[in-house]
């Protein structure tokens, strides 16, 4: 019981430390940290409209965080969330505008599914490269991010382009739009459901057990008859699916179409969120809401307190530093209790 409490304390402390350090930086750059943080809260949590915006921003972050956390369970580090997300967003947008005349009960899930499957296929590539050739997923996923950005750019400007000067796909049919309930985006609740599904899959199914076995010790898992290669490929595919679903929800629930430059930087935020949640699928939800609130309130902070919204990037980086470095963990837990993340074990081995 005490341990659980302490484990919970580490991320909370990391966030508090990061916010305090952020305050010092704001003060050093000549603004008032109190005003800045007040504006930040104003813009993200003060009324139903701003809360709606926070949840809207948090939705792809939940999915991006889940994608990273899920892969972590099998000892894999998926930095390719960005590429998988843009593929999902683009394909969902294409299905959303290209197919007409369907009732929404079919069209909306169809577009979501198409986006998710595209992301799963894109995510499976680094899994296959790792399983068959031993290429480390950290490098291949990053390289595939650049490839994906170029390819979606090309598809949006050449294949599925809207008439006109702006490079983007046409607006999706209303039958493919994810509704809002008042100010609250339904997409967020979909993301929460997916988080619970991931939690259940990892906790209570054989497949989940196999994933965790491979993550803890691939050699032992292999000895126990688990096909490590299959698990690596499947896990990367699911991880890609999760990130892509985040992109599809963003297209169908918020933007309404795909535009190049869509949600840049999300892949990295997914890492922050997954580590902040200590890779627990359910803890990803509050972590994503926290980061989402920072993004929703960032523009208000610039407007009211004249602080560049990039300060939230720094706070996020600081959170990550405090969460990922074992200093804090060592302070609160004795050596034996630490169950630290490790993804370096398979570097360069084939």
């Amino acid at each position, binding site marked *: 019981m005490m341990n659980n409490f302490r484990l919970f304390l580490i991320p909370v402390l990391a966030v508090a430390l990061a916010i305090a350090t952020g305050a010092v930086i704001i003060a050093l750059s000549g603004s008032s940290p109190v005003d800045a943080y007040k504006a930040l809260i104003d813009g993200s949590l003060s009324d139903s409209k701003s809360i709606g915006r926070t949840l809207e921003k948090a939705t792809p972050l939940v999915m991006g965080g889940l994608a990273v956390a899920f892969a972590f369970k099998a000892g894999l580090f998926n930095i390719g969330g960005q590429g998988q997300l843009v593929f999902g967003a683009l394909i969902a947008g294409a299905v959303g505008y290209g197919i007409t005349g369907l009732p929404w009960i079919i069209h909306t899930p169809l577009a979501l599914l198409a986006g998710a499957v595209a992301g799963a296929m894109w995510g499976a590539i680094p899994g296959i490269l790792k399983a068959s050739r031993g290429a480390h997923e*950290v490098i291949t996923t990053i390289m595939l991010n*650049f490839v994906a950005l*170029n390819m979606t750019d*090309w598809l949006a400007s050449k294949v599925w382009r809207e008439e006109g000067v702006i490079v983007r796909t046409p607006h999706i049919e209303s039958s493919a739009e994810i509704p809002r309930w008042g100010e609250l985006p339904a997409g967020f609740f979909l993301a929460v459901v997916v988080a619970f599904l991931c939690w259940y899959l990892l906790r209570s199914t054989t497949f989940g057990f196999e994933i965790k076995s491979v993550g803890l010790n691939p050699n032992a898992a292999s000895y126990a008859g688990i096909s490590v290669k299959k698990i690596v490929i499947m896990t990367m595919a699911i991880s890609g699916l999760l990130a892509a679903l985040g992109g599809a929800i963003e297209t169908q629930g918020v933007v309404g179409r795909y535009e190049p430059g869509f949600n840049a930087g999300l892949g990295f935020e997914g890492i922050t969120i997954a580590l902040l949640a200590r890779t627990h699928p359910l803890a990803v939800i509050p972590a994503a809401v926290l980061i989402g609130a920072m993004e929703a309130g960032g523009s208000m902070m610039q407007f009211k307190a004249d602080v560049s919204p990039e300060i939230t990037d720094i706070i996020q980086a600081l959170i990550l530093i405090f969460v*990922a470095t074992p200093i804090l963990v060592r302070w609160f837990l004795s050596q034996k209790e630490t169950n630290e*993340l490790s993804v370096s074990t398979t570097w360069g081995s084939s």
Partner: protein
Amino acid sequence: MSANPSKNIKQFFFSKRWWILTTVLLVFFTLWTSEFQQANTTSVLVSTLRHSTPLVLGAMCGLLCERSGVINIGIEGQMLMSAWGGFMVASTSGSLLLGVFAGIGIGMMMGAVLAGISVGLRGDQIIAGTVINIAALGITSFFFSLGRTLPSGKAQVIKLGPLADIPVAGRVLFSNKPITFLTLLMIPTLWFLLFRTKWGLRTRAVGEHPSAAETVGISVIGMRYLNVIMGGGIAGLAGAYLSLEAVGSFERVMTNGKGFVALAVMIFGRWNPVGAWGAALLFGYASAIQTQFQFRDWLTDDPQFIGIIPFVVTIVVLAGFVGRARPPASIGQPYSRE
């Protein structure tokens, strides 16, 4: 060593047959696509060398760290921070030299951070590197300010006297900017240091079998700190190259994945500075080829397909070679004296 020298030469050529074949093919392809015009060929080769410089520097940073057993996935962030820091110092002070030193210094500090987390605190090395990448992105974006320039302009080309007048080779090899020359000198120097000196032997011992190294009195922790910090300095030089020598200003995310391509270069070059140079030239060529395509008017309507070439080459190389290339044995494992 065989006593028969001609057999030795044969063996050498046989063992390097893929390198030789690739080089011949590339030379031919270059000549063909530049329509056998000297000016075109020269410009492609110059562009290849220019693109390869930050890659080989990044790869040397990576191999210094990995030879001593530490994975450095944060090269990208180290380069970006140094590119920014070097540019800020140079634009404030007006001195390019000061900017380059600042870039190296910041790179060493970032190296110290990586070493502190992964060697000192025995944290996961890949997560530590990722932290550096994300922090660098956040910090450089926050402190990025438009409209800053270099009062002295970017670094200028130095011509090495009459050597620079040799056709093609003169322009490519003997008429370069300072950091490019420095890099060309560093490649053989680092090779010599790694494979022919006591320090190099110790570094490799620490990377292969740390506990054995410790038994004979080598400080594993000390060697790892030293090498990771030195590697950071080299990545810092690569950053300074980007902002002060290649572009002449700082742009957001200007490293654009070069730090990760450098890791592939390091693996392709089998953790050897000279091998890494060969690999970096190949990757530099994959980037320089964009101009080639423009000469022939290929794919100019779909520039995205040209843009992915270096990244696809990286993936193919990793998938093709990583299984056969053997990294230092103790890589990725934190060391603690039991």
